[in-house]
């Protein structure tokens, strides 16, 4: 019984990951696998849409920490979007807004990728 779900789709050549439910110590390895797969096939422009993310724990944040450098090394980025106040609060508490690009919504996050390319 896992109340966590990950969907992945492509939009304007950007890989969008939809997180749903609880990202915690138990489910963190699932997100890790997704990042690993994307990096393996050289997809480095990633938006993580947190619209339906109800909860994130330190272990969940740790996955972002573990892969951000690999992605940025290849001129990509992991941008986050559509965060609820509750989830943002955890990011904020641990100082993540300094390290990560957090956009209001998905469109804004995607636009940031595209404007950088031009």
């Amino acid at each position, binding site marked *: 019984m896992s109340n966590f779900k990950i969907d992945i789709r492509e939009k304007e050549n950007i890989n969008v990951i939809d997180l749903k439910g609880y990202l*915690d*110590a*138990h489910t*963190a*390895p699932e997100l*890790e696998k997704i990042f690993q797969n994307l990096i393996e096939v050289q997809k480095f422009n990633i938006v993580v849409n947190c619209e339906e993310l109800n909860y994130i*724990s*330190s*272990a*969940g*944040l*740790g*996955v*972002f*920490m*573990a892969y*951000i*450098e690999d992605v940025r090394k290849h001129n990509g980025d992991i941008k986050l979007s559509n965060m609820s106040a509750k989830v943002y*609060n*955890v990011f904020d*508490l*641990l*100082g*993540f807004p*300094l*390290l990560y690009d957090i956009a209001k919504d998905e469109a804004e996050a995607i636009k940031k990728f595209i404007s950088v390319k031009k």
Partner: protein
Amino acid sequence: MSIPVLQSEKKHLENVFDMQSLFEFSNVVNASLDLKFIFNHFILTLMGKLLSLRGIVLLERKPGIFCIESVKGLPSDLINTEIRIAKIPKRMINIEREDIRKNPWLKLFKINEIHFLLPLITRDRIVGIAGVSPDRRKKKLNKQAMAYLKSIANIAAAAIDKGLYINELAVINKQLDRKIQELKTLFEVGKEFNGVLDADRVVKLLLFSVMGQIGVNRYVLCLTQGGEMEVISSRLDKEFDRKLCAYFPSIESPILIGNLKRKADQAVQKQLMDVGIQVLVPLKLQNQTKGILGLGEKLNRETYSKKDLEFLSSLGNLAVISLENARLFREAIEKQRLEDELLIAKEIQRGLLPAKLPAIPTFDVAATNISSKQVGGDYYDIITLSHEHYVLAIGDVSGKGTPASLLMANLQATIRALVPLGLSLGELTKRVNDLICENTGSGRFITFFWGILHVESRTFKYVNAGHNQPILLRADSTIEKLDKGGMILGIMKAPNPYQEGEVTINTGDVLVLFTDGVSEAMNSKGEEMGEERMENVIRMNSKESADTILSKIVEDVREYSRNTVQSDDITLVVLKAIIPDCSLEN
């Protein structure tokens, strides 16, 4: 065109204006919790009233230390400058009337052309100080202006005081939230650790949680494995020298590498800093350091706080308990697996040994195999070729457990397949060796002895392939050792047939084939029994039946190795010629 106003009326208007302005100021600053806004509004109100071109506000940040928070008409780089003021004036002062030599801190204001200093007092406590330089025309302040300034300073002080409290509360709240987050993490990870018996997953969860909570992505994790600290996982920009692990078991509490002061630590300190490690956290189980977590710089470049270290210790200790559980679980499984395997090996071995010994006319024969707990690869066999010819064989396969049993099965099958070919024993042994060589991997071999007994002539032709030399005790108590043969089976293909030996076994002679489980049985001091002791037992019992001789030898081995665990199989074959030659002829 100005309308002439009476002096008294002007004063009245000024009064009303002051009151209005005070009221407004009070409303505005009290509605805000933003200190910067309060400073700004305060300073502008002061400057407006006094037609001042410059203004400055300082707050007491630590006892006696005042920090410039806001300036107007002055260089903005003055902001955050700290000055020490031993004794702050309780009333407004005119700097030009003060003795700078007595109060050197006034110099800062003097050079910035601030003329008046106004203490900010609330609840009898000075929270800060404000400075202005009124226009020349306003240099002489009347009583009413003084009262106005004092009021405005008091209102500002109260608002600032409130703002400071709120700010402090916000900081405390954030710290509290962080603490809650830490506890949540510990709780969640602890719960997750409990259910996981897979060490790799525990390590992964530990590292993810640390990276997320602390905001770091450079680490090295070392754990004690088999008595030595080893690197389990690392992510550093430079290679981590494994030799550093030797230093780790001595670490008992978290340390910041930058704080290492002892001379003995300097070399290690330099090496750790070179690879970017800033902090070492011991992972402890029952007060023993079982592992070390080394972390690099936090991504926000802050140094590690005491709270960070406490959190890391707690998390690390939780992880180590879980890792220890995983290890014990793995060991239990492995032990179970080994025991299952041994059971299989024992069954194979038992199946290969003859269930019942053939009766050999005019000879008395007995044999036994007592397998040790680990199951060695001992083997014996007595094969009836014809009513006159019998094969006696004994062997010891290197190694223990299932692999040894399987090789033994291989040997038995080979012997049984080749014996009917009717070749000489030396040639047969060569072929057995060559086949075993082809079928076994390197490092496995068999010491092997076998012979063919011809009942009528009582001759015994044999080949000894590196096996313990069987003892032939003659009726006159002399001993011969059956040593003719060649190299151990399974090492390399033999260029020539093995050398054969031949002896005649006469009435009363006793032949004992044995394996090293007998001659090398250990006593509690770790000394081997040796063959001489066995020879004596055989001698003393030579008049007895083969069965009795065999059990006396076993008894003696048991006696010798009392209080020790039998480490190898014990295998014995005893052959005794019993009925005189003539009896056959009769």
